[in-house]
């Protein structure tokens, strides 16, 4: 088993989806899990043979680690910021690997098509050059992305948006959107992709919107709309696993983020839910 993912924390549910006294079944890295929430609110996770699994509840999510955690659960500093509306998007299962979902979350080139009229629009489909760096502790930091968005604020007003992206854990991605002209923060978003097995994941999103101009239900509705636009793309990618070997799919300059993400996974030695050799690509 892939030690990198086995010994990492993964979101396996959100507390909103699990009322007190309920149990619910999921899977992580191919291991079936039963999550139970006692009447007192405490959460426990067991495997099908009853063996307990290391778990924690944080940021409204239920976290699990099947092995020995190499690092603590990822920090979400935005939650400490005052006057922030935090919304959990709702878990959506996807018939694609977690890596494919993360890569899609980081992808600029699809905004004008898959999210046409919301996060992009023709003819403004050119992806201007942006910066990609390696984070000090490993991982990918992307800055300087500029995108025209026709309906980024749910008001049908076009605005220029600046994006930054970050991947600090193999299956967690982060972005921040600001209004380019004023620098005002629009949204911060996290995608925690739960690797159910090599070909399936659950997308858990956390959205942080400053102020209280939008209701949680509206933010969630918008997020679900956007994610549902991506879902059939992800489910129609072949192979389902993310190809991370060289020369396996054809990237272009606009895919610098994806190139860096794939390369980082390869360097880390991630093997689960990815394809490393071109020969391994199923027809």
């Amino acid at each position, binding site marked *: 088993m892939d030690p990198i993912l086995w010994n990492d924390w993964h979101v396996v549910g959100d507390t909103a989806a699990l009322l007190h006294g309920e149990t619910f079944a999921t899977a992580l890295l191919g291991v079936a899990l039963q999550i139970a929430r006692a009447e007192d609110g405490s959460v426990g996770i067991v495997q099908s043979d009853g063996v307990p699994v290391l778990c924690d509840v944080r940021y409204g999510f239920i976290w699990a680690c099947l092995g020995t955690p190499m690092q603590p659960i990822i920090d979400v500093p935005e939650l400490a910021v005052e006057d922030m509306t935090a919304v959990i998007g*709702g878990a959506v299962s*996807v*018939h694609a690997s977690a890596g494919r979902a993360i890569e899609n979350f980081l992808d600029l080139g699809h905004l004008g098509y898959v999210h046409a009229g919301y996060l992009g629009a023709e003819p403004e489909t050119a992806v201007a050059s942006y910066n990609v760096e390696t984070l000090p502790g490993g991982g990918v930091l992307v800055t300087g992305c500029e995108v025209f968005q026709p309906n980024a604020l749910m008001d049908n007003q076009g605005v220029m948006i600046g994006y930054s992206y970050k991947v600090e854990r193999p299956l967690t991605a982060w972005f921040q959107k600001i209004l380019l002209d004023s620098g005002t923060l629009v949204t911060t978003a996290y995608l925690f992709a739960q690797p159910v097995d090599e070909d399936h994941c659950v997308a858990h999103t956390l959205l942080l919107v400053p102020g209280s101009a939008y209701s949680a239900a509206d933010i*969630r509705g918008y997020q679900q709309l956007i*994610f*549902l636009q991506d879902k*059939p793309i992800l489910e129609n990618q072949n192979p389902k696993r993310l190809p991370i070997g060289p020369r396996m799919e054809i990237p272009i300059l606009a895919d610098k983020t994806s190139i860096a993400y794939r390369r980082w996974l390869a360097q880390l030695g991630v093997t689960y839910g990815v394809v490393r050799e071109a020969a391994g690509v199923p027809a």
Partner: protein
Amino acid sequence: MLLYDNAMLPECYAVRLLSGLLGVELDLKTVDCYPGRQHREEAFLAINPLGTLPVLDTGDAFLRDWLAALVYLAARYDSSARWLPTADAGRLAAVQEWLSIARLLQSSAGAARLHDSIGMATDIERRRREAHDLLRMTEKHLWFGERGGDDWLVAGAEPTIADIALFVHVILSEEGGIARMPYPAVRRWTERLRRLPNFALMGGVFPMPALDASRTLLSETECQAASAQSATH
């Protein structure tokens, strides 16, 4: 009119879709049913004791069934009676028959999709088999329809609410593990619908660009000519 709405549900989409095609403005109120479970809260149950979405508040009544909402919108706002042929007994009955099939698709393909995407409990293999049986029947109907020059479920020059009702579940079927590859005539029919002017989308439904007038479907003779040509290569 106010629609109690949710972005994930095909039944809500059907109502938005038809209102768009009819040019009827709807006010939308998002009910956060997943994961918020607002459809189980007292406030919503007071409107719809069934706890289902959508609900169309017409001002006079709450319509708690998506197919009823389609019937209402068409009967009230489509003066040409194109979408619901009330004056033609045969076509009206055919529309009703397909609406019943749409209901069966809701409980098969629709349930399979909710199972696969948000974990709703159901006998998934059985739901998929039921949906495939319905799609096989629809495929045969549409294929012979195409041969006879009929583009839509109910014979006639124009689509009806039956097309809308089936479409929303058919087009999302693959999210429930129900492939559409075996149903080429169904796939073409979904494209014809998506090329209608003012055709609204939901997440999971891809747009279809309008065909140029100059690039209409090849006629049978042109197909044969093209076929003869490429066979000689």
